Every structure is written in C-alpha cells, then in structure tokens.
C-alpha cells in the first residue's frame, strides 16, 4: 500500500523529526521577532495616524496603504532581492522578520489608530494640562486605555502573522514550511509532511485565537 499517507512515510518523518523541530523553532523565533517589530511600527504609525498633524497623518497613510495593498510575497521578494543591491546583507530569517513585521505593522497601525480614536479627547487634554508631553500622555494615559479595546484584534493579527511567516519558505528561510517543503521534495512524502506542519501551525495559532475570542467576550461584557 503506497497511498500518500503510507505508514513508512510517517516513519521516515519521525526519523527526521529534528528537521521539523528546527523549522518549528525558526518559525517561532521569526514570529516573536516579527511580532515585536510589527507592534513597534504599529504603535508608532498608529499614533502618528491619530494626530491632527497633516504631515504625520500623511506619512502614516502612505505606509499603511502601500503595505496593505500589495501582496506580502512581493514585499518579501523585494527585500530579499533588493537589499543586497543596497549593500545590506541580512540572514534570510531576518529578511522574513522584516518583511512580515513591516507587513503586519501596517495592519496593527490601523488597529492602534482606531483604538486611540475611541478614547475621549478629554483624556489627552487632562494629561497635557498636567504637564505631560504628547508622547508621555500617549504612553501613560491614552495607550493603556486603548490597549483594552485593541487587544482582541491585536491577538488576531498575531495569529495571521504566525501563519504568514510561512512566506519564508519561498526564500529558503529555514522556517517550518521551508523544511517541510524541502524534506518532502527529496522523498516526495508530501502527505505526512504537510499534515504535520499544518498541525504544528494549529498548535501555535489555535490557543491564541481562543485567547482573542475570550478577550473579545470580556471587553463586550465590561463595555
């Protein structure tokens, strides 16, 4: 019996488990780093987008629109092929981190902007009137309040981000998807390979998605 899920193919996969483990580790690492970058960009551009300064708003708009309206794959290829021309040589994994981080940063910026705009303007005025700087007021007064509104959609962004790190496979990034791909390209045991990575992504994403739903319910109740 030599179906796509034949037992000996699974045995081969278990024998090479460390390949998948390495991929899983890299995916995890890329996800964490990309998420940190995306959060930083998202907060900066989200805040800029919420100000009343035309230049800042425009700046934020340009970033968000360009990133949201072009495919992630193109952005990653652009970084992968373009950066060396600028004399920037980065390890592939970090190309993925930058690509995915910048991509999700644009979505998070929109989430953060909406969150900030949901906070009554009297809050900013109170903080400014006490002598806070704009960024100080953001950090200590506005963002902590916006965080409660923003946390559920943010968690959903984290889920998409983890899944999207799989674009790394297209530039030989050493992530989970890449290892599954190259392992099964050699021995054509695609069945077990793809089921396994699917399950591994599920293990990462499902709890997060559940957490997002829990947060959504909680903010609904308290609202």
């Amino acid at each position, binding site marked *: 019996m030599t179906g796509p899920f034949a037992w000996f193919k699974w045995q081969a996969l278990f024998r090479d488990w460390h390949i998948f483990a390495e991929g899983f580790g890299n995916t995890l690492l890329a996800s964490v780093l990309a998420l940190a970058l995306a959060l930083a960009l998202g907060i900066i551009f989200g805040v800029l987008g919420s100000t009343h300064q035309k230049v800042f708003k425009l700046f934020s708009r340009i970033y968000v629109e360009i990133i949201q309206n072009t495919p992630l794959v193109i952005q990653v290829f652009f970084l992968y092929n373009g950066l060396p021309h600028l004399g920037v040589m980065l390890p592939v994994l970090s190309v993925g981190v930058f690509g995915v981080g910048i991509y999700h940063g644009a979505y998070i910026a929109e989430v953060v902007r909406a969150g900030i705009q949901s906070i009554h303007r009297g809050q900013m005025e109170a903080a400014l*009137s006490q002598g806070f700087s704009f960024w100080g007021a953001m950090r200590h007064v506005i963002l902590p309040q916006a965080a409660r509104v923003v946390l559920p959609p943010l968690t959903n962004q984290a889920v998409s981000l983890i899944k999207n790190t799989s674009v790394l496979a297209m530039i030989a990034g050493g992530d989970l998807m890449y290892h599954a791909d190259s392992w099964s390209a050699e021995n054509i045991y695609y069945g077990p390979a793809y089921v396994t990575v699917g399950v591994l992504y599920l293990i990462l994403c499902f709890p997060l998605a559940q957490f997002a739903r829990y947060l959504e319910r909680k903010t609904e109740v308290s609202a």
Partner: protein
Amino acid sequence: MIQLEGVHKHFGQLHVLKGINLNVNTGEKMVVIGPSGSGKSTLIRCMNLLEKPSSGKVIVDGVEITAPKAPVAKVRQSVAMVFQQFNLYPHKTVLENLTLAPILIKGVSKAEAEESGMAFLDRVGLKAKANVYPSQLSGGQQQRVAIARALNMKPRIMLFDEPTSALDPEMIQEVLDVMVDLAHEGITMVVVTHEMGFARQVADRVVFMDEGQILEQGTPAHFFSNPSHERTKLFLSKILR
C-alpha cells in the same frame, strides 16, 4: 499672573475670540460668565494653551507661552485645570489619579505624592475612596477627585471650566463647597461658571463675555446691583431668575 494681550481665536471661518486683553492678578479669584457660545471655554483654554490663539500673546508667570519653543509643558505644571467632564483617568485608581503626574512629571517620590494625595483627598472628603476606580464614584465625587488631582500638582493657578455643569443638582453644592474652601486659601483662580452664588461669595472680579469679547467687568457688587450694559442686564435677568 496671567496676561492676555490682543488674543484672537478663529475656528475656520468662526471668529471666537476678538481681541481679548485681560490680566489675572496673583491671588485673584476671577469668575467668567456669559451666554453659551460666547467663547468662555476657548478663553480659559487659551490660558494653558489647550487652545492655541490665532494671534496675540498669553503670558503666564512671566513666561510667554505663545512664543515659539516656549516651555509650555513646564508652565502647565503650575496651571491646573478642572474640566466640565472631570476627565479622570479611568484606568487608574483615585489615588493613582492624584499621584501619576506628580511622580512622572515633577519627579516627586511615590511616598511623598501619596501622602500629599491622601491629604487632599481628605480635604475633599474622599479619603475613603482612595483605592476605588473613578467609574465607581458619583459625578460630584469624581469632580472632587479631579480637584484633588489638580491640587496635588501644587499649582499656582487653578482654571475651572464649568465644573458643576455636568452634575446633577444635588451634587453641585458639594463641589462648590470645596471650591469656596480653596478660594479662601489665596490660590489664583479663574472660574467659568453659571453659579452666581459662588461668584457673589468669592469673586474679586466678574468678567462678562459676549460674542468673543469682554463686554464688562467689575466686582460682584457692581455686577449684580448695577451692570452698565443692556446685554449684561439681559443675561443676568435670565440667569438670576
């Protein structure tokens, strides 16, 4: 203490302040009255630059805060404001509301900020509420906390923009009592209010605004017995009814 010189404010086409000249003296209690939309809020918000004048100068404690690169945030530390909508920080407890800015902005130690914070809470009668969140308080209590928050910055000037207008009638007095108490302390106060009893009781000067201009000013005695302008009379007759 606060000087406004030829202050104009436009909101787009709307000319809201039309050349205001005004001096608030040290220790003075000034009450600003006037019909809705006359520019009272805009005027008081120009005093701490929450509203930036379109032209003219605002000088606070000798510092021209309308000048480019003026240390506005620094000046604001000594000019506290109490808002109509309280604007307490809902994610902080009552005591944290009082200590946040002193600790972060003025660099006061936590212990010190809490100690003085508790003293001010005691003074507004809300010591027992130090550890609850603002949403658990009534409007009158929230406004008293807002006043305590302002006081904990140890300001030299207090600005009040209709502090009792958002309150249910039965809560107005508890807030006014706190303000009267403050007024007897010598701190400089500018109060926009429709509470004529308060004006009569504590004001050194009443300023009547109409259509973006100061139409008339004087002592409460002058104001309430023989105002000189027809429009002032009309306004007072409506409000004192």
